[in-house]
């Protein structure tokens, strides 16, 4: 059996889900017999590959760049997994939603800045009006809630997905876990 191509993606999140994923520790070595990590913040590939079997997406969709990325990911992925609360509910990034992006940027870069008061406008992507979960943009196949989901949750879920075994998400994790 050829190895499954797995990608991990970091949108608007804190990287905590990736940390937790790496906390699988030595079990990663056994997993490496079954999967190849073809795209991730921790590998060097710059472009999302054309054909990915499983994509684990951390973080919410908060900017025009995130939106572009998630659509591209969906188009090239067989099984898309929303990894963690930010991807599923918006979570902490969505706490800005009751306010406008302008108000938030103003607060961070003008009101609270003691020097160089200016709102970043080059290189950084434009913020969307509200932060939204990824399933509001693309079809998501598996939801893995948690902030972050525990290493055991990742391991159990990945093994189930890779081997095609049964997977009871609610028995493993919940929002805020």
């Amino acid at each position, binding site marked *: 059996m050829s190895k499954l191509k797995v990608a991990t993606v970091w949108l608007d999140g804190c990287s905590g889900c990736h940390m937790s994923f790496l906390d699988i520790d030595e079990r990663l070595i056994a997993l490496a017999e079954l999967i190849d990590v073809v795209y991730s913040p921790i590998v060097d590939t710059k472009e999302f590959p054309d054909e990915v079997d499983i994509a684990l997406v951390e973080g919410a969709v908060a900017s025009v760049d995130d939106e572009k990325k998630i659509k591209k990911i969906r188009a090239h992925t067989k099984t898309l997994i929303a990894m963690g*609360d930010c991807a599923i509910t918006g979570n902490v990034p969505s706490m800005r*939603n009751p306010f406008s992006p302008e108000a938030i940027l103003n607060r961070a870069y003008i009101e609270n800045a003691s020097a160089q008061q200016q709102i970043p406008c080059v290189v950084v992507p434009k913020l969307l009006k*509200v932060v939204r979960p990824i*399933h509001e943009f693309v079809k998501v196949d598996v939801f893995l809630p948690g902030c972050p989901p525990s290493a055991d949750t990742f391991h159990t879920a990945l093994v189930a997905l890779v081997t095609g075994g049964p997977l009871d998400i609610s028995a493993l994790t919940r929002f*805020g876990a």
Partner: protein
Amino acid sequence: MSVDVDVKTLVIDEQEVSARAGQTILEVARENEIDIPTLCHLEGLSSVGACRLCLVEIKGSNKLLPACVATVQEGMEVSTNTERLRKHRLTILELLFAERNHICSVCVSNGHCDLQALGQSQGLTHVRLPYRNPGLAVDASHERFTVDHNRCILCTRCVRVCAEIEGAHVWDVMGRGINSIVITDLNESWGSSSCTRCGKCVQCCPTGALFDKSKIGSDHPKYPDFLPYLNLMREAQ
């Protein structure tokens, strides 16, 4: 001498059970270890059937009945866990999560929240509805407690415990529909209200909407178990 007890026999989830007349379906189900999920219901307070999570099916009726207020009838056939009910319960939970700003990961009640626990037990892994993201206030004017309206689900447990048990009736609900909000007195700040500072509302609140200021992080389990005991002691007097 025989004691005249009006006994009803009925069927809940294909299990034959007997009950006293006037008992609710929920009471009888729980006596027989049949689980019906509830949220606004709390033992020791009156039931209002507000959250609709305890809806059950009655054979021969198209109407779903809230088990916390519907009383048993002779020969009733109750189903508590059908596909249709599970679908409705999931939708109710989704509506609750989407209505206000429930961010479990940063909530003082994370791990001790009835809404969160129900989400898990009912298999809710995501919310299909768009989040409303309303701009809601946090009132920290009280010296001991805070109310965060972002986390309130309008179950009215605080209103009921304050009126029925404490006898102060400081809490009430203002507004209608989606604009409803719990208030203290006539929408005074909690700190300057006629609150007796007993803290019963905080212990009864199923989410992190009412919390004790001395608690930090998510270390805030609630203990509403004193209510039935308190009622029993009062009845004995």
